[in-house]
């Protein structure tokens, strides 16, 4: 085929330009470390990179959430641990106060120490986090959760927050509760179940009526208390001619049970002990007390005041101590439940943290495969293209320098 002069030059120049273009592209991928510099370099890869980057960003945020959550949970755990310690000490003191040989001064001293423990517990309930939020106040974290007013006619300790709890997302599908409300942890504690004698027939004389076996009575109470129809909580003890006393439910007229009865001798039915002087046909009415919820600090407040009150003794003191013990036990149980929930949540957080680390590694790996330059491959390419460019540059003058005009005339 005939070659024109322009063709010779054009072809050489074209080869040099092409080699330069390829060399520059390889050099760019070597110097930026990325073989995907713009979407057209690898369109499908570019779309994947957007999604992988989103996933990595999300995981980073989730890990940050995890750290914040762990801090918050550990703070709560510390508070509840301290509180448990204090309440255990208080329980020991209450048991000690039940010792009959203590004098009134000794009881007063115990009461004073219980007062201090009460203050400490209240303080812990009003813990604030680093931003000044009251951690047990529910959603109303800007105001103090528990206020203490010793002169109040009802409860001395009132809760002014709400039952809101916040949660934190640790991964796409896992949400973990972050805060608990003081309403659940401290206020939602049952006080001791009790009953009160409401009346008796003319000839019956009740000398004692108290709960002797709390466990049996609690079972009876749980099974029979009716929150919907208050009338079903009224019971009657009737002395039968057979030497027994029968317990009937006044609301449903159902016979609950019967035990042997001797007038003037204490008898126990369903965990309640009565000592009644009555003859056949006499009745004693009592009703189950509405179950109360009592803050554990309120329990401490009550028992401290009662112990420091010299006028309280005998059955009343025994009842007060029983109230305090049950209240403290229930309170500690609720706190312990919360502590194990915290522990469980901390474990979940740690486990999710590890999982996210693995996911992060996988995503980073996938992204690196798409985006990053394989230096070995790129360096080889570069050497190859460099050689081609040098060859093109070297041969250009030799080919273009040949001309017939140099040889004629």
């Amino acid at each position, binding site marked *: 085929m*005939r*070659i*024109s*002069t*322009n*063709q010779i030059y*054009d072809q050489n120049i*074209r080869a040099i330009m092409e080699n330069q273009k390829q060399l520059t592209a390889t050099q760019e991928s070597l110097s930026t470390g990325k073989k995907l*510099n*713009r*979407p*057209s*370099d*690898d*369109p*499908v890869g*570019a*779309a*994947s990179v*957007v999604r992988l*980057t*989103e996933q990595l*960003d*999300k995981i*980073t*945020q*989730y890990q*940050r*959430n995890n750290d914040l*959550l762990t801090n918050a949970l550990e703070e709560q755990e510390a508070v509840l641990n301290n509180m448990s310690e204090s309440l255990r000490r208080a329980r020991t003191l209450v048991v000690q106060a039940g010792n009959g040989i203590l004098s009134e001064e000794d009881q007063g001293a115990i009461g004073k120490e219980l007062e201090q423990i009460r203050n400490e517990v209240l303080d812990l309930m009003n813990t604030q986090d680093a931003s000044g*939020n009251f951690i047990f*106040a*529910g*959603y*109303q*974290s*800007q*105001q103090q959760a528990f206020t203490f007013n010793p002169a109040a006619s009802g409860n001395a300790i009132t809760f002014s927050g*709400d*039952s*809101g709890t*916040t*949660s*934190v*997302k640790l991964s*796409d599908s896992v*949400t973990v509760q972050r*805060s608990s409300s003081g309403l659940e942890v401290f*206020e*939602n504690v049952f006080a001791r179940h009790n009953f009160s004698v409401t009346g008796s027939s003319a000839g019956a004389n009740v000398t004692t009526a108290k709960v002797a076996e709390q466990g049996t009575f609690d079972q009876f109470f749980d099974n029979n*208390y009716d*929150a*919907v129809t208050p009338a079903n909580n009224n019971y009657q003890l009737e002395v039968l001619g057979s030497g027994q006393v029968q317990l009937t439910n006044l609301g449903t007229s159902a016979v609950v049970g019967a035990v042997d009865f001797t007038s003037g001798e204490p008898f126990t039915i369903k965990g309640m002990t009565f000592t009644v002087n009555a003859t056949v046909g006499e009745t004693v009415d009592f009703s189950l007390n*509405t*179950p109360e*919820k009592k803050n554990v600090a309120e329990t401490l407040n009550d028992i401290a005041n009662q112990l420091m009150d010299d006028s309280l003794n005998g059955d009343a003191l025994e009842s007060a101590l029983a109230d305090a013990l049950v209240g403290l036990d229930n309170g500690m149980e609720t706190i312990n439940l919360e502590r194990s929930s915290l522990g469980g949540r901390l474990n979940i957080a740690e486990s999710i943290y590890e999982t996210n680390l693995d996911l992060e590694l996988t995503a980073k790996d996938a992204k690196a495969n798409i985006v990053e330059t394989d230096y070995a491959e790129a360096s080889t390419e570069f050497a190859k293209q460099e050689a081609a460019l040098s060859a093109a540059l070297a041969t250009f003058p030799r080919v273009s320098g040949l*001309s*017939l*005009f140099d040889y*004629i005339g």
Partner: protein
Amino acid sequence: MIRADLFNIATSGVNASSQLLNSTSNNIANVNTEGYVRERTVFESTTLGGVGRGTTERVISIFAQNQLRRDTTSVGELETFVEKTASLDNLLAGEANSIANGLSEFFAAIQTASDDPTNLASREAVLGKATSMVARLNSISDFMEAKEEELNLEFTSQVERANSLITNIGELNVAIVTAKGGSNSEPSALLNERDKAINELAELMSIEVRENQFGASVINLSSGESLVLENGDFNVFELGNDADLNFKELQLATHFNSQTKSETAININEASVGGSLGGLFRFRDEILGPAQRDVGQIALAMADAVNSQNKLGMDLDLQLGGDIFAIPEFTGLNYTGTPDNLPVSGRIIPGQGSDITDADYKITVDAVNGSGYPTSVTLTMINSDGTPKKLADGSDAIFPSIAINAGYNDLPGGIQIEFQSASGHSVGNEFLIQPTKYVASDIALATERPEDLAFAAPIRAEASLSNLGDAQVKQVTVSNTVVDAALGSEASAFNGAGGIHNAANAPGGTVGAPAQIVFTSASDFQVLDAAGAVITNVSGVTDYDNLLAQAEATGSGPAWPAAFSALDDYPGYDVSLSGVPVPGDSFNLTYNTDGVADNTNAEVLAGLQREGLVQLSADSSNKTRTFHDAYSSLIGRVGEKTATAEISLEAAEAMKVQSETWFDSVSGVSLDEEAANLVRYQQSYAAAARILTTAQDLFDTILSVVR
């Protein structure tokens, strides 16, 4: 006579050699002239002896020339297309402008703030990230808008160039025909000029060239319209536009310059123009238009989703949340044929941002009432190039007979429109609404106050302390917080003053909004209002999810109030429980006064990142995608088109190199060949001159014999 013959022969020989040397020298001198075709002088022999007439002709192969011209057109189209697409490709490559990064950072900031919703610094950070995300959307959209303007300027300049080339070719045609008639040699210079002009024109568009018997070139577009006619007449290109002033359309107009007849213009199908002009149109219709609208669609969907969710929450001022992003309204453009004094305005339907497509809306008035106000319109969803969008079954996305009333009317696809002028409309008026084209440039923040972020839920549900069962509030969901004292169909139970409706404000006026749920057994409950009045009783409950919805569905004795059900979504909140309630357990629903540590709505806001909120197609029964999915598919599409175009460009360039090689091998000057010819013709010139000397000698000899 021999001597006369010898002299003649010698003269003709010298002349011939001289002509040959002339054309060889011409070739050598013009080796660098662009568009020069080498010439060759050809001689006829005569019966009288000597060299006959010589014609200088160009050495050219029409087939090589046509092939080269076709390849030039391909390369022209792809070169322009690749250059334009690569700039968009580079823009999307940059991390600084990446919308995906902006979205990720925004949602990450919300997550961080959700951990401590009362912390003003975290809230400021959320607003800061929102600002930067809006800035990225603005800058990408502005860049594409600037590209559109640049494109229009290029259209204009290329069309002018094409017109001047066409004029030039027409004039050259006339000159060539005249020159051919006058001599028997070709007017090579003129022919070369004309070929050069035709090649330049071929780079701009795809043309067919034919030569008639007089030597004039007749040029048509490949799709048939004539550009240059035989007798020197020609047509010129024009750019017109319809409703959208920035969307230029190509037209071909006559150029009679007559005093009696006015010029006419016909439309040219831009998709078949080819060449550099076709490449520009292809870029606009395949890449730029859809990309602008996709970015706008993502921006609208995101802004509307965040706004709607923020309104379902309670902010730090203890009020119901408002808009975070300010979404601009758009005005309609009138098509030619529709009077300009009939404005139409449009906006997105709040809360339906996930229905918005990337289509433009063409609205045609079907019917008007007596006073000239439209009563029914047809909606056509069109692509960026004006063709109708297709539904899933392949049919066009046309929605006929949509009823129109006064005020804003909802249209399919999440847009509502209002005809501003109360009269003057007629059947056949057409309007164009482009909701997504420029909107990403105009989105801005609606508030600078960090307190306006509504992270808390506006309703709080609490188990009463006297509950004996272990049922807990699992979730409170809020679906409607519209405050409307007039109790229109969209009203919710919120009274806008920090509470929910009491009996006096609520629909029906007999009971207030649900404020308390009391369980009478594990499977029966009552719903009461804040004053304690019974709203409804529900029995046979098996699961404790969405108790108010269950009450609305199955409540009886009394049944759920009809006035409540008559509204779209009243009361607008619901509660779900976990655990098992015992009789007597009650749960209170109150406005979340002071509940600023609640992060329920913040968690939902952060969860928007994972929800499918961007429409996939114009079809209503469709899948939605997340923001990141939509953006990554945009990047993938632009990247893939650029990569494909680059490969096609390489292929076309390779083909052009081949045709150039063929053309050059026929018509290119080879200096070595011409050098050899120079020597040859010098020799023949010397030899022919020698004949003269010989003839002169012979004459002298004869003369000396006679003396």
